[in-house]
C-alpha cells in the first residue's frame, strides 16, 4: 500500500512517527502551515516556522525516505490578531518555492470579518501564483461555515478543481461534492471522522476527488490512520486499485496541479528485491 498523506503537521511529531509511517507505506506528506497551539504575536515567528516547513522538516522526513512538501498561509485563527496580519505581505516570497504545493490552510475558524478578508486575499494569491488552495472548515458551526466557504471560493474566481475543502463529515460532504471542489477528510482516533465512517462515505459517494488525511498534529491524533482507512476499505470489499486511488493517485493529482510535485526520484514502492522476492521498501507490500 503506497500512501500520500495530503495533510499532516509533522513539525509536532517525533522521528518515531516518521519511522512508523515509512514502515506503513507513507512515501509522501504535505504539511500545511497552521497554528501551533500557542498563539504567535509577531510575523517573525511565522517566517521561522515557514522556513522550517520548507527546510528542516523536509530534511528530517528525508532521513526516513519520506518526501515532504508544504502549503503556506496565514491560518484563519491567527488572521484575527492584528499583530499577525503583516504575515499576508510575507507570503509571496514563499509561494514561489519548489517545496510549496498549495496556499493553505486558509478558510474560517470563527467566521469573523477579519477571516473573510484574509481568506479572500489568500485565494487571490493562489490564483496569482498558480497554486491550488487547501481550505480548512470550522469545527464549530460547520455546516454554515462550509456554505460560506464555498461562496467565497466561488466568488474568488479560482477553479473549483484546484481547491480542497477539508475536515468534512457526513453533514458537509454533499455540499462540497456538488461544488466541484475536492473533498478532504481528516481521520481522527475518536471524534470528527473514523476509518469506518470514511468507508461508508466512499461507498456512498465514490472515490473521485476524495482525499483522506490523518491531520496529525500535537493534539490527540494518529499518523497511521491513513493506512487504517486503506485497510478498512479492503475489508469492506474495495479493491487494491480503489485504495491506491484514494491514498495515492488522488493526492498526486490534486497537488500535481501546482506543477511542483516532483516525485521523480522516489523509489518505486512496488519494486521487488530480486534476491528475496520481498518488497524493497518497508511496508511496500
Amino acid at each position, binding site marked *: 500500500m503506497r500512501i500520500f498523506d495530503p495533510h499532516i503537521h509533522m513539525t509536532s511529531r517525533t522521528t518515531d512517527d516518521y519511522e512508523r509511517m515509512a514502515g506503513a507505506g507513507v512515501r509522501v506528506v504535505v504539511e500545511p502551515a497552521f497554528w501551533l497551539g500557542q498563539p504567535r504575536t509577531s510575523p517573525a515567528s511565522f517566517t521561522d516556522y515557514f522556513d522550517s516547513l520548507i*527546510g528542516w522538516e523536509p530534511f528530517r522526513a528525508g532521513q526516513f525516505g519520506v518526501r515532504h512538501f508544504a502549503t503556506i498561509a496565514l491560518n484563519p485563527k491567527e488572521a484575527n490578531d492584528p499583530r499577525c496580519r503583516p504575515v499576508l505581505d510575507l507570503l509571496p516570497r514563499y509561494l514561489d518555492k519548489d517545496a510549496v504545493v498549495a496556499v493553505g490552510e486558509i478558510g474560517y475558524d470563527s467566521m469573523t470579518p477579519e477571516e473573510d478578508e484574509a481568506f479572500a486575499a489568500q485565494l487571490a494569491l493562489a490564483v496569482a501564483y498558480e497554486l491550488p488552495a487547501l481550505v480548512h472548515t470550522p469545527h464549530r458551526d460547520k455546516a454554515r461555515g462550509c456554505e460560506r466557504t464555498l461562496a467565497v471560493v466561488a466568488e474568488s474566481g479560482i477553479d473549483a478543481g484546484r481547491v480542497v475543502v477539508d475536515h468534512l463529515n457526513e453533514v458537509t460532504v454533499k455540499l462540497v461534492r456538488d461544488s466541484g471542489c475536492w473533498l478532504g477528510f481528516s481521520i481522527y482516533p475518536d471524534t470528527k471522522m473514523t476509518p469506518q465512517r470514511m468507508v461508508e462515505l466512499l461507498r456512498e459517494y465514490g472515490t473521485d476527488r476524495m482525499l483522506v488525511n490523518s491531520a496529525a498534529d500535537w493534539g490527540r491524533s494518529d499518523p497511521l490512520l491513513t493506512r487504517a482507512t486503506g485497510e478498512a476499505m479492503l475489508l469492506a470489499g474495495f479493491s487494491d486499485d480503489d485504495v491506491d486511488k484514494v491514498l495515492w493517485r488522488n493526492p498526486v493529482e490534486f497537488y500535481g496541479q501546482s506543477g511542483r510535485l516532483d516525485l521523480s526520484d522516489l523509489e518505486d514502492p512496488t519494486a521487488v528485491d530480486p534476491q528475496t522476492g520481498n518488497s524493497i521498501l518497508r511496508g511496500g507490500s
Partner: protein
Amino acid sequence: MTPDSLRAALRGVPDPDWLDTALRRVTAEPTEITRLFPAAGRRCGRGALPDAPGWTADDAARVLLLTALPATTPATPTPSTGTATRPSGGPCCAPCRCCRSAPPGCRCCTTAIRTNDTRLVAAALGPYARHLDPAAWRQAVLKCVFSGVPLAAVADLDARADGELATMLAALAEERHAAGRDLPADATDLLHRLTAALPREA
C-alpha cells in the same frame, strides 16, 4: 568556472529562453530576482551539467541570475529566505559556493553551520568557510565528523587543520573508543596526518 562557461553549459536545458529572459529582467529590474531565483529548478531542471562538472542546472542558473544583478544592487537581502530551502542542498546564498566572497554581513554560512541539516553544513564548509575564524572553523569540521559529513566537503582542509584540531579529534576518538565506536575513516586519516606532521613533545 566563469559565468560564460556556466552559460554555455546550460545551453541544453529544457527552457533556455526562460533563462535568457530571466537574466535580462534581473539586470533591468533587480527586485525581479525574488520570483525568478526560486523558479530556476522548475524551468532549467535539476540534473547534473555534463559540461560543468560538479554543477547542477538549477544551481548554475541561480548563480547566473546573481551575476546578472547590476553591481550597484545592495548585496543583501538575498533572494531566498531562511536556509535549507533547496533539496539539492547548498546555502541560500550562492556566493558561498562560487565566488569565495559573499556580501558583507552575510550570515548564510554561520547559520548553515548551526543547522543539523548535513547538506547545509557540507556546503558551508566550501570555499566561503575561509571567512570563519579558526575556532569556528574547527568546531564546524568537528561537527562534520560528528554528523557523518565526509571531510572531502571541507575546502583547504589540510592547509587549515592545526594542532588544536588534532587535539579535538583525538579527544573525540577517545570518547568514541570508550563507547566501543570508531571515528569515520576520513577523520582517522586526518588525525594520523596531523599527528605525523606535528613536532613530537619532548
